[in-house]
């Protein structure tokens, strides 16, 4: 190893090195670099080896020792050096070469970026990553989701510098995701009022404490949904990360907007209030009685007993009720067919004491008589007929005057009451004549004018369609065959045609029974059957309807219409349609009404403003579009079933609940409840502890998104 210096530190013996300059003399590597060095642009500035200086009259050579010292020849007489330096090819210094290389690489990078912008397949090149599978199937190009996707570089620069100039990215997302509704971007896709109500409800809960990082995050960064402001889709959904879960969020992220926070599902999560029975079932069903009394042997295999009536949907997500025909029909089909009841009165003529009226000189024309007289007859027209009558308002006035009067025995009536009865009878006749004369077009015109306040156009059309005009015509033909001539004569002021009153039926005197079974017994022989389930029932001077099967269309339609007409609650007495609509609904919803629809089908409050109601005609239907706050998937739970099966989670409610008359099979209370919310469930709500047995972080998972939807609709 040598420690001897490899060079001398004598400046006179060394060239002047210029490592920081861009160019170096081409002779440097040969050991005799030009003292001047190259020019800035790499041009050789070679001249002479020295610049002679003058001593007295003599020019002296000034060549450096490094280049050999003063030359032998010495300067020329004119003082110039005699040794010209040969021109060289300057070379770049290391630093300069690095600079050039940097510039080239930078230019190449910029060029590559520009090429990416210009190339036809740029979508694939500039894409930050693959989309999730759902988007990949429907989206092919950037411009389908991005406003500037189709633009050029200048558009991108403009959009980057002024991001608010274009449409928000979330708005573009919502062009496809219309199912999220008008409040899609608000927290949980709910309106501000709903969010305010939910926040107030949450504030009522006892204070809880979440994790420390969550508290710090909230204190540091605040809630992204402060004041229920709109949130960009990208707040939670990060696209272009491949086939990852776009909805993946941590429990802490879910809670950052919530005032009440907690550690985990098993530690601090609010109790499950009534879940999953926080709403009444659509079908009122007494599980305990059926399970314990009607089918006692089913209890030996609980799982099979449940599956006698319930079946998983196609995705094993929901347990659905089997159809009526596969379950209830075995025992309840006869009740539906209404074999022992007289049926629903579509139209009816009141029994009127014709003899007394004639004696008092009150002229009502032809009217069927009925015996015995002790069958009380009120001054009320059948509800459906009253609703569609053009004389509806006049009928309501006269009915009010005659309230409490038995029309079948007018012997004690005053002369004013007799005149009102006369008016009432003629209004009925005019109604029949007008309804039958104008037919359905007339009904449509009348309903559009008189019921538009209560029914929408579709409902009015439905009403017009279902009114059994043929049956009403048959009834009129049977009992009031000359009513058209009579009404025409009365309206023109002419004398009424002479027609003799006759008994409705000879057997009418046999109607003395007050119980339904006896009435039914004489029903068949005293009825004239018409097509479509209609029958003219002579003893009661009525046109009646019996459902032929479950889900009878006419009864369903009339129940829906009557519920719509009666509104969210019973209408006040002074309402024009109050009496007939309420009467029609009660006739259809009563315990022993035809079809007994409301025995099982409950009523829901709807979201219609003013508080509408609707009948649950169907059991719960699995919907792919419905997104409630909470969801449940039976599939993984069914997969780990033990012998306890369904009852492991679905246990019966305590006796004090299930003893409620509303729940009991055969209870008449059930049919009279005004809405399904009065119905109590006979299963005990599930407890959080039961769920938390498996739903831990290490086992079945305890993420918020396991059971909760964010977008609620």
């Amino acid at each position, binding site marked *: *190893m040598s420690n001897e210096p490899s060079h001398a530190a004598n400046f006179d013996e060394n060239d002047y090195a210029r490592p920081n300059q861009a160019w170096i003399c081409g002779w440097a590597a040969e050991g005799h670099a030009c003292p001047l060095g190259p020019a800035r642009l790499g041009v050789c500035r070679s001249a002479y080896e020295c610049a002679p200086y003058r001593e007295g009259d003599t020019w002296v050579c000034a060549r450096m020792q490094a280049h050999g010292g003063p030359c032998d020849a010495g300067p020329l007489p004119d003082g110039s050096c005699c040794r010209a330096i040969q021109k060289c090819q300057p070379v770049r210094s290391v630093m300069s070469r690095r600079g050039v290389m*940097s510039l080239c690489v930078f230019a190449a990078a910029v060029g590559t970026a520009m090429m990416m912008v210009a190339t036809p397949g740029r979508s694939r090149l500039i894409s930050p990553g693959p989309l999730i599978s759902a988007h990949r199937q429907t989206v092919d190009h950037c411009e389908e989701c991005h406003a500037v996707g189709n633009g050029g570089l200048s558009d991108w620069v403009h959009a*980057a510098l002024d991001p608010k100039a274009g449409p928000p990215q979330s708005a573009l997302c919502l062009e496809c995701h219309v199912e999220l509704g008008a409040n899609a971007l608000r927290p949980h896709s709910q309106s501000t009022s709903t969010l305010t109500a939910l926040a107030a409800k949450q504030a009522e809960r006892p204070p809880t404490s979440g994790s420390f990082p969550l508290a710090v995050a909230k204190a540091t960064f605040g809630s992204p949904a402060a004041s229920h402001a709109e949130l960009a889709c990208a707040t939670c959904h990060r696209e272009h990360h491949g086939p990852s879960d776009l909805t993946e969020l941590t429990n802490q992220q879910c809670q950052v907007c919530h005032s009440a926070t907690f550690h985990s599902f098993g530690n601090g999560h609010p109790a499950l209030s009534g879940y999953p029975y926080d709403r009444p079932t659509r079908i009122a069903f007494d599980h305990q009685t059926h399970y314990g009394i009607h089918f006692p042997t089913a209890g030996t295999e609980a799982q099979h007993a449940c599956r006698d009536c319930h079946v998983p949907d196609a995705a094993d997500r929901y347990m659905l009720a089997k159809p009526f025909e596969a379950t209830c029909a075995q025992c309840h089909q006869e009740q539906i067919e209404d074999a022992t009841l007289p049926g629903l009165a579509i139209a009816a003529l009141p029994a009127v004491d014709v003899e007394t009226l004639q004696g008092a000189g009150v002229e009502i024309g032809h009217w069927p008589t009925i015996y015995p007289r002790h069958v009380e007859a009120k001054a009320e027209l059948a509800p459906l007929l009253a609703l569609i009558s053009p004389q509806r308002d006049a009928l309501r006035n006269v009915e009010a005057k005659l309230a409490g009067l038995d029309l079948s025995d007018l012997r004690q009536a005053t002369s004013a009451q007799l005149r009102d009865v006369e008016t009432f009878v003629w209004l009925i006749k005019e109604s029949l004549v007008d309804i039958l004369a104008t037919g359905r077009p007339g009904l449509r015109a009348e309903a559009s004018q008189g019921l538009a306040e209560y029914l929408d156009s579709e409902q009015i059309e439905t009403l017009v369609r279902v009114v059994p005009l043929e049956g009403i015509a048959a009834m009129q033909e049977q009992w009031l065959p000359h009513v058209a001539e009579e009404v025409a004569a009365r309206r023109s002021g002419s004398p009424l045609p002479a027609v003799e009153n006759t008994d409705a039926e000879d057997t009418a005197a046999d109607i003395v029974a007050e119980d339904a079974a006896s009435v039914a017994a004489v029903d068949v022989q005293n009825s004239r059957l018409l097509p479509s389930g209609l029958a003219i029932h002579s003893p009661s001077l009525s046109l009646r309807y019996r459902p032929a099967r479950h889900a009878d269309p006419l009864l369903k339609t009339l129940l829906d219409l009557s519920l719509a007409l009666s509104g969210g609650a019973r209408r006040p007495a002074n309402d024009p349609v109050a009496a007939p609509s309420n009467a029609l609904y009660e006739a259809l919803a009563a315990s022993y009404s035809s079809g007994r629809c409301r025995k099982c089908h409950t009523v829901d409050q709807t979201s219609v403003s003013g508080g509408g109601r609707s009948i649950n005609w169907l059991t719960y239907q699995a919907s792919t579009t419905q997104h409630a706050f909470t969801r449940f998937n039976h599939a993984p739970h069914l997969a780990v079933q033990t012998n306890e099966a369904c009852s492991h989670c679905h246990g019966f409610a305590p006796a004090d609940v299930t003893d409620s008359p509303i729940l009991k099979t055969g209870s008449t209370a059930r049919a009279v409840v005004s809405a399904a919310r009065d119905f109590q469930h006979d299963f005990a709500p599930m407890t959080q502890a039961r769920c938390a047995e498996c739903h831990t972080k290490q086992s079945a998972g305890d993420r918020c998104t396991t059971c909760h939807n964010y977008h609620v609709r």
Partner: protein
Amino acid sequence: MKRLAARRTRNLTILIVAVFAFLGCSALATIALRDTARLSGWLLLTLIIFLAAYNLRKKLPFLPLGSSAAWLQFHIYTGFFTAVAFGIHIAWRIPRGPFEIVLAALYLTVFASGVVGLFLSRSLARRLTTRGDEVMFERIPVYRRQLQHEVETQVLAFLTASDSSAVAQFYADRLEPFFSRTRHFWQHLAQSNRPCVALLNEISSYDRYLNADEREAMQRLAKQVRKKDDLDYQFALQATLKYWLFGHVPLTYALLAFAVFHLLLVSAFSGGGR
């Protein structure tokens, strides 16, 4: 050494604290559903620009911007910090888009070249002090040329003074290639003396065939061989210290170009994050 250890401990402590603080803030921002990719992206771009500015700082020594040594320390530790910021920015996932992959690869290459450079500057600089004296890199070709000239002068002088051509023949056959250019680059980097020792052994092996004058001439040549080997050693190590920057610096500018393009794309396509 105490000062160096204290400085290193202080800087490492600051780095570790900064990393944990950043990781904590990032985790909190993630919990609060903030766009951590955007935040970390801006931070990363700022840091990369700052790191790239170190090269400019070296070109502007007259400006009172702090000492170059302080900038280097900041450059090193900030460079390590960017690795964490980069990890947070890509959410510790491997990018999937072609452009993103290139961008990430560029960053990782620049980072890796920086780490390699740090290692080289720490190890080679120390090794440079173990052989020869401090030589200016740009002058090494000059010295090599001077050395070759001296050797050739000696050989010619000996050839003229004596009738023997053994020394001249040996120089022409074995030493001329050695002196005419830089040799044994990789062996010097690997701290290997084997080529030099082999050459010296070869010179020694001729001793028994030479007379006293020839032996003395050969001993002088051996001395020059050692000087040339020291010069080659200096060249190999100094060249490595200079040429690793040919990867680090240009790629940094490419990274900057791509990062700005990435920022443009993200800003334009995100619709302002709304």
